[in-house]
């Protein structure tokens, strides 16, 4: 069967102004147990690439600049 992509709101928000991925930081990507974060090389910041969050928070807690916020995903708010 052919595949479709569908959009989803994701719980992890990255503040581009604070994120230092452009300087080579990958801490949030490294610590995610589900490997759902990635670096957007054009924007030079991290973002949530896959909607597979366990809202566990290492990305937020370990971020050296406080750029990451983990929200409670919409369906269970």
């Amino acid at each position, binding site marked *: 069967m052919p595949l479709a992509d569908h959009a989803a709101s994701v719980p992890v928000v990255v503040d581009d102004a604070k994120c230092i991925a452009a300087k080579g930081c990958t801490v949030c990507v490294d610590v995610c*147990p*589900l490997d759902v974060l990635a670096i957007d090389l054009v924007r030079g910041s991290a973002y949530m690439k896959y909607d597979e969050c*366990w809202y566990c928070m290492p990305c937020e807690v370990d971020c050296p600049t406080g750029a990451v916020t983990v929200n409670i*995903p919409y369906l269970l*708010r």
Partner: protein
Amino acid sequence: MTAPVTETVDADVLVIGGGTGGPMAAIRAKEANPNLRVVLLEKANVKRSGAISMGMDGLNNAVIPGYATPEQYVKEITIANDGIVHQQALLAYANGSFDMIRYLDKLDVKFEKDGAGEYAVRKVHHMGTYVLPMPQGHHVKKALYRQLRRLRIGVINRYMATRLLRTPDGRAGGAIAVNTRTSEFLLIRAKAVVLTCGAAGRLGLPASGYLFGTYENAANCGDGHAMAYHAGAALANLECYQINPLIKDYNGPACAYVTGPFGGYTANNKGNRFIECDYWSGQMMLEFWRELQSGNGPVFLKMTHLAPETVQQIETILHSNERPSRGRFHARRGTDYRTKMVEMHISEIGLCAGHSASGVWVDEQARTTLPGLYAAGDMASVPHNYMLGAFVNGAIAGEQAARFSADVDLADPDADFVALEQERVLAPTQRSDGLTPFEVEYKTRRLVNDYLAPPKVTAKMRIAQQRFAEIRDDLNALVARDPHELMRTLEVQSILDCADLAAAASLYRTESRWGFYHYRVDHPDTDNDDWFCHTLLYRDANGAMAHRKRAVDPYVVPVDQTEMTAYQHLRIAPAAAANAPAAAAE
């Protein structure tokens, strides 16, 4: 298909799974013999992987001199599991418990102590006193990681083991792994293997709609159970599911273990207690489920009667350890422990010896039934072992694996087996259309909820088996568009294996046992004549699923028959229930 990129690494001891028991197994193997090549393989990153990725708020099963003896603990866990335990393994855990606490203390893991510097142990269990709070338990993974570095243990992150290798003489001889970001293969030849892959926690489907909104860390999806099964190791008592009382929707623990010692308790919609003890057992879950079905449901965690200072203390512990996002969850809904009870519900099913009793069979030396293969933590069969059990039994597994490795040689893997496995792994990358891993996973887990979750009904479980067989055919249509999705296609195969194992095990044991965990409506009674035994599930020589009974070994700690029923009367008698809230409040 072009030949996949493959590197080879050799190890004396290979540990698969870098969460809780795995790092400790690697540490103890290396401490046992610093000359050993110890490799710790992890699907995520050891820094923040596994069930305790964000730490832990306390030890639920600390056996500390002055509060409990190993014999008392063995007795309590025997009773809580309706007698079906391998007491030797429980005793090995209990005997190692206090030394491990002191070892962790030395690694700078923080435990609650009183003014005199003694451990501040609390009572939560029905009979004994075993709970040691860790208000600063968010440092556990950091402490482990420092020790791994100090000992120069070889850590390999972002590689997912897919199958164990077997030597020509039938031992575990290493593993095949695939990189979750590049799909490159790694072959690890090893003299001994320790499996510490955590629970099969992505089995039932949470009602929230999120595949990954599970109670367990969603990375723990039964890879270890599946690998052990395919390698020929036996799995024990899988019909004894894990089902936990959790915060409704959030799906994290409500944590009666944390709040209980401060005076919080599980209550019905009238604010009344209905169970004598909040310790998680199948019998407690049965009463919890009955209350949910009744006019007294739903069920809540009640803290509204506590002093503001006490609530503050509870919040500090619960909102900074294990699942810290719970504070945010409550805040959005305006749930303040001081004024509102916290709505609870029961979790989806899983397989997890951490809180329940099922998993890969291990004895008191953490040996599985396959020579050279050891297992520990949530995926091994030592009941109720929690985080401290993962550490203690992980340590035993590491030490035993180190010893075993001294007497055997590395063996070359069977080239045909490796080629076939690489073909299986990569098949979803060869297709451009078909089924996504998420669809196949959703369908499998939805069927788990519909047909496997208790109350268990024979006819429903047989339907589940038919539908799982159909899904097994659908695996040939899986599509992965990148290495990340490829990891998910492999995980869904572990999930389907665990679903099949859970159905087969549940059908085999034709009685009810362990309260709600194995409540079979059409076999409602406990049948000690035929079923006072372990059940083992394994892959026979023809590759078919087979069962056998294993007698419960003679107890090393005798249990009086009158004590044996202590966990079967957890519901508070009506008259007592009417008095309880008055006694509990203020």
